[in-house]
């Protein structure tokens, strides 16, 4: 046979396209997906019918209009939808900057499926969950060493919930000192995650947002002007979403402390810092890590997850409870928090599976491996950065020189010269089996994109991603229409989004879609 020539520079990809109906369209009256456990005849004879046990006014009169579908058809439908989803397992997912999409070790996914994990009730007697509590305690110890903080809670179940918990602790701390009413401002930066500002606002704070200096650093002079006797707290990521590390961070925390504020650290961008530098030495009073980012728990389509929240000894009384402790007899116990605590932010103890996964991940790396993670994440990023800057139309605003684990880039030149926007490129990257993200809003960097290669990808993986971007840049300068009209090899084509902001037209459920688009069906009913 002839030799098969494989010399294309970008992957010849097509996403799965099953043309799958919405699940209600699979309905066939009488089909069953599963039969739940039933009531024994003797039980029914003794207690009577369901109807006899529910007050007449509370009985459901018409069955929910759920579809009736045989089991194989349900399975097939959802398997097809899964195939139409590009999980990070399937692609070189360096395009979701700020989110640290790293390899999810399969052993950890196996470990969490142990029934001695999945079938635990959170209120079981502590003597029956010593293994689980030991995992919580061991992860707490590791997190303390990684951050320099003195105690961790794993109750917050995302970065956003950890930020909410930290803003709550700021309020409880100032209330405990009688300064709660006066200290009503929280300072953040524009290159930080929107949830920093949003969660502080949920807790009733006025938000002061600092913009960067011309090199992209948070502006120390602006901070000095912003702090006052009204300052409750300062929340920042470092590096910020630009990948620029603020080397003067200790001066920032000193300024805020001098004004009486609490400094809390969003460590969503910690992947380049493990074993290198810590929250404590930078002067922070609190920090959190996303276990589903830096510590290799999966993102699960958007949770469940964990925002591991660490505090100094001084703020420990304010943590949500209970906390896991080891008593003098070597027994793991749950210690309730006192009156000063913010109470709780999530039911029970948080997402225990994520705690187990991240503990397993740390145990598979050790101190040396964690430092390897940080160094290789920064190496990969700077390699990528070096190559991206060679692509026509791409740039990286602000300070020249090295970045840590990610970079926020700009296609401004490409857009000015070709009319192709960063959103167009988002859709075109799908055609090569790759994910690409722009930035949070507002777009301070024009036509932004944010890449974070983590430690998980090989040089060849990075080169594939770079080549795809080069290819699209070339298309933009030679045949921009193919980029603007993308995607071409995806499950579906461009959405008509005109209905999404119109209350008369938006359809958030199938029943709303039927009512709004086929009112005649409703009339027949």
């Amino acid at each position, binding site marked *: 046979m002839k030799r098969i020539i494989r010399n294309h520079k970008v992957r010849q990809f097509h996403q799965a396209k099953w043309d799958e109906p919405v699940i209600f369209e699979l309905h066939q009256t009488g089909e069953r997906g599963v039969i739940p456990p039933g009531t024994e005849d003797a039980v029914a004879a003794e207690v009577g019918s369901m109807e006899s046990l529910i007050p007449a006014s509370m009985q459901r009169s018409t069955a929910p209009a*759920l579809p009736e579908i045989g089991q194989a058809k349900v399975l097939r439908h959802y398997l097809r939808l899964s195939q139409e989803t590009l999980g990070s397992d399937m692609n070189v997912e360096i395009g979701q900057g700020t989110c640290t999409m790293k390899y999810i070790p399969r052993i950890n996914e196996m470990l969490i499926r142990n029934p001695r994990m999945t079938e635990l009730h959170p209120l079981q*007697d502590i003597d029956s969950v010593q*293994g689980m509590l030991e995992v919580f305690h061991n992860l707490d110890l590791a997190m303390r060493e990684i951050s320099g903080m003195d105690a961790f809670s794993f109750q917050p179940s995302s970065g956003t919930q950890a930020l909410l918990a930290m803003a709550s602790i700021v309020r409880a701390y100032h209330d405990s000192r009688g300064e709660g009413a006066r200290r009503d401002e929280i300072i953040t930066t524009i290159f930080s995650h929107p949830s920093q500002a949003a969660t502080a606002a949920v807790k009733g704070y006025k938000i002061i947002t600092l913009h960067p200096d011309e090199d992209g650093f948070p502006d120390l002079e602006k901070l000095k002007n912003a702090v006052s006797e009204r300052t409750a707290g300062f929340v920042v990521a470092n590096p910020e979403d630009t990948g620029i590390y603020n080397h003067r961070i200790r001066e920032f925390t000193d300024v805020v402390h001098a004004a009486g504020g609490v400094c809390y650290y969003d460590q969503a961008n910690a992947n380049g810092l493990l074993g290198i530098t810590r929250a404590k030495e930078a002067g922070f009073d609190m920090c959190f890590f996303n276990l589903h980012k830096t510590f290799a728990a999966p993102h699960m389509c958007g949770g469940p997850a964990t925002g591991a929240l660490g505090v100094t000894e001084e703020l420990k009384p304010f943590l949500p409870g209970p906390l896991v402790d080891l008593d003098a007899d070597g027994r793991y116990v749950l210690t309730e928090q006192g009156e000063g605590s*913010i109470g709780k932010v999530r039911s029970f103890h948080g997402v225990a599976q994520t705690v187990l996964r991240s503990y397993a991940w740390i145990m598979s790396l050790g101190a040396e491996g964690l430092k390897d993670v940080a160094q290789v994440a920064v190496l990969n990023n700077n390699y990528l950065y070096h190559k991206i800057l060679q692509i026509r139309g791409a740039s990286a605003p602000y300070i020249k020189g*090295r970045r840590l684990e990610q970079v926020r880039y700009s296609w401004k030149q490409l857009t000015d010269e070709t009319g192709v926007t960063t959103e167009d490129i988002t859709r075109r990257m799908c055609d090569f089996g790759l994910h690409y993200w722009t930035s949070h809003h507002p777009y301070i960097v024009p036509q932004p994109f944010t890449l974070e290669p983590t430690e998980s990808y090989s040089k060849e993986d990075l080169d594939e991603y770079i080549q795809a971007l080069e290819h699209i840049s070339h298309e933009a300068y030679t045949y921009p229409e193919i980029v603007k009209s993308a995607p071409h090899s995806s499950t579906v084509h461009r959405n008509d989004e005109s209905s999404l902001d119109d209350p008369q037209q938006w359809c958030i459920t199938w029943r709303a879609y039927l009512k709004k688009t086929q009112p005649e069906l409703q009339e027949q009913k």
Partner: protein
Amino acid sequence: MADNRTYAHPYIPNTVPEVRDAMLKEIGLTSMDQLHDAIPDSLKLNREMNLPPAMNEYELRRHIDGLLAKNKHGADYLNFLGAGCWQHFIPAVCDEINQRSEFVTAYAGEPYEDHGRFQALFEYQSLLAELVDMDVVNVPTFDWAQAASTAIRMAGRMTGRKTALLPRSVDPDKVAIIRNYCTPVMDIQYIEIDPATGRMDLQDLRGKLNDDVAAVYFENPGYLGIIEDQGAEISALVHGVNGVSIVGVDPISLGVLDPPGRYGADIICGDLQPLGMHMNYGGGQAGFIATRDEEKYVMEYPSRLFGIVPTEVEGEYGFGDVAYERTSFALREKGKESVGTQTALWGITAGVYLSLLGPAGMQEVGSTIIQKSHYAAKRLSDIPGVSLRFEGAFFKEFVVDFNNTGLTVAEINGRLMEQGIFGGKNLSAAYPAWGECALYCVTEIHTQSDLDRLAAALRSIVANHPDRS
């Protein structure tokens, strides 16, 4: 990086020395340490972290399996704990779907590369909408407590008022979460409950309703298992002061219990965990919020709301974010509360569960639960000294009063554990006025013989106690 490493770490391909060196050279560096030059020495750790040594995959497996072996679990113990996390039957297809690599590792993809994720979550919204009989359901939030907290804050914004009322029968832990989330913007106050029935004291409610009440929140079934059958009256009373009626529900009851919209609820919330999620030591929780399809409600959701749209090709379903500009993703502190990673995979799983159960399955599972819980309650209250704390209807949980046994709940639960049974949640600390009471949970997973075994164990524990009055 250690120079003496003899092999690359399996999770870090570029620890291969030749590759590492080539990449360093490409960016003009000669050592790995230079990568962190931006960090001042004064902030560097400059020592190795004190952590246990790394394990290989097999060692790790032995280590973790060894730790987990110390746990006793609800599959080999007979479990009657509920109180916000419940042991239910989980169809195998639910696990198969939520263990799919694509769903486990997806995150923030676009509607094109992640069409399946968008469709699965839109379907979840649509299926739950049928169960709760509302036209709008969100992409799920953290848990029931968060859903209730957000429902209350939504009502606060809609009405411009600062007070929310809820009955004293709501789980104290849930109230702690609600209070923290609402402080200092809203004030949470209790309505008393009828000591005999556990239902809301409407007299007390009437006295507390005024022009500053944004919402009344109540549950069906409540934390103590009780069916609140005064819903229509409660909703009418709160509507009478132009407030919002919020009802929290256990969705697995809605095959047999009336959906709250039929008794006046404006916002419905609850926990998805009963719909296909393992207990996972509390890691299976996921909160939902549902409302009518009215702009004034939809625009107050902080959550993502996925909508169905046409694409430029006829015949294709597309999906996208509805009213994205309301969210904190778009507006930072000016958005509605905050949004981020929550519990999307549990939403997809709940959708699979409802697809499998269908209308008949939901009705059957609700019937089975209520019959079995009543059977257990009857068996237990036949035991001398043991009674039910409340009269009236309940769903899957009920409060058992042990005050006349001469034993504490802690003592009883300790003896039950010796017999391989997790007794009900001890309520004596949370509700000291009731003395020694426990909250028992019975679901479709319990067989008649399981329930008889519980009753026999309790009977023997109580009978053998010399001090029984």
